[in-house]
């Protein structure tokens, strides 16, 4: 969320680094580098952006980093930003387990989305879900987007992104 055009330059840095070194930047290094960028700009020209940075390192170990616009950072098993976080964090606290499988984790995510669609005052129908693993970043296609909208309302009317391809 927030103004994130400047962040693209950090992404290009990661790509460049990979070419020079011959191997990818680890999630820990990428996260700390990003946090440093936020911190350096904070007291002059701050980035108004909150981040969730997820990655998998060379050994297959995944990690999730929560960063906010004040350049704070925490490595977590689960995290959330924005108004939805007020609802989601409780759901995650209750149902998250360290030994979850990928499918169980996706189910938990769907639970979170349902919670937001049920309790949050703004209607949020379209969600983009991505999985980051050894194969890279893949979009998950079957996340429902209807929320609490009546079942007779066609998906395209809710949002063009929900129209079937």
């Amino acid at each position, binding site marked *: 969320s927030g103004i994130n055009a400047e962040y693209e330059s950090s992404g290009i840095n990661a790509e460049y680094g990979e070419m020079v*070194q011959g*191997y990818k930047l*680890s999630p*820990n290094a990428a996260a700390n*580098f990003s946090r440093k960028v936020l911190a350096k700009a904070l007291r002059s020209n701050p980035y108004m952006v909150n981040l969730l940075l997820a990655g998998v390192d*060379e050994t297959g170990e995944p990690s999730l980093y929560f960063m906010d616009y004040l350049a704070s950072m925490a490595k977590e098993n689960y995290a959330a930003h924005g108004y939805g976080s007020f609802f989601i964090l409780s759901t995650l606290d209750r149902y998250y387990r360290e030994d979850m499988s990928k499918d169980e984790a996706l189910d938990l995510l769907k639970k979170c989305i349902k919670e937001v669609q049920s309790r949050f005052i703004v209607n949020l129908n379209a969600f983009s879900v991505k999985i980051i693993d050894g194969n890279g970043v893949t979009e998950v296609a079957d996340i429902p987007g209807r929320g609490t909208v009546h079942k007779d309302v066609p998906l395209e009317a809710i949002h063009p992104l929900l129209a079937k391809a």
Partner: protein
Amino acid sequence: AVVSSSGINAEYGVLAVERRNTINSLLDDTFGSEKIYRLGSDVACSVAGITSDANVLTSRLRLIAQRYEFTYQESIPVEQLVRNICDIKQRYTQTGGLRPFGVSLLFMGWDARYGFQLYQSDPSGNYGGWKAACIGHNHASAVSLLKQEYKEDGCSVKEALLLAVKVLSKTLDINKLTSEKIQIATLTRSGDRTVIKVLNGDETSKLITEYEAEAKRLEEEKKGASGSKA
């Protein structure tokens, strides 16, 4: 200044074996480890050449390593550190009209990606990765000795230490090797920490004694063998 270094890649650690300068009774030797420099938590280097030039480079190396760690909260990969300083050394050969640094460096280090590594760099800014290397006085004969004795399929830290002592004793212009004349450092992993250790006088003496005993034993074996032929 006459300095000889040798680095040997063993399975558990990498060694740098150093020689201290000529023993002068007037020299104040309260400060140890003059020619082995810790560059970071996982990298150390030793130098051969003009000491004052070396000091500039090692200060720079330490800054580079710590700057990386400050930004990425991770140890700098060994090759990246070597490449960075070599890029600086190269600049002095091409621009500015300044003279190059009269220093050769041997780096020993560990990183998570490539494990234990040994790099050698010279005043041109060229660098290479090695299984075993030698710089400084008489390094040519030391290298040829290493070529004969170095075992491809790895050896333990102890064996590598003894090999280093052997190489040093044969290439330095001294009759008897003592712990004051050489300095040895090992780099090993213990759990998820890297341990860089400079051996103290007693440990060095023990190593030398062990090497000499082994050398003597081999001499006698040879004599016995040739004696029985006669």
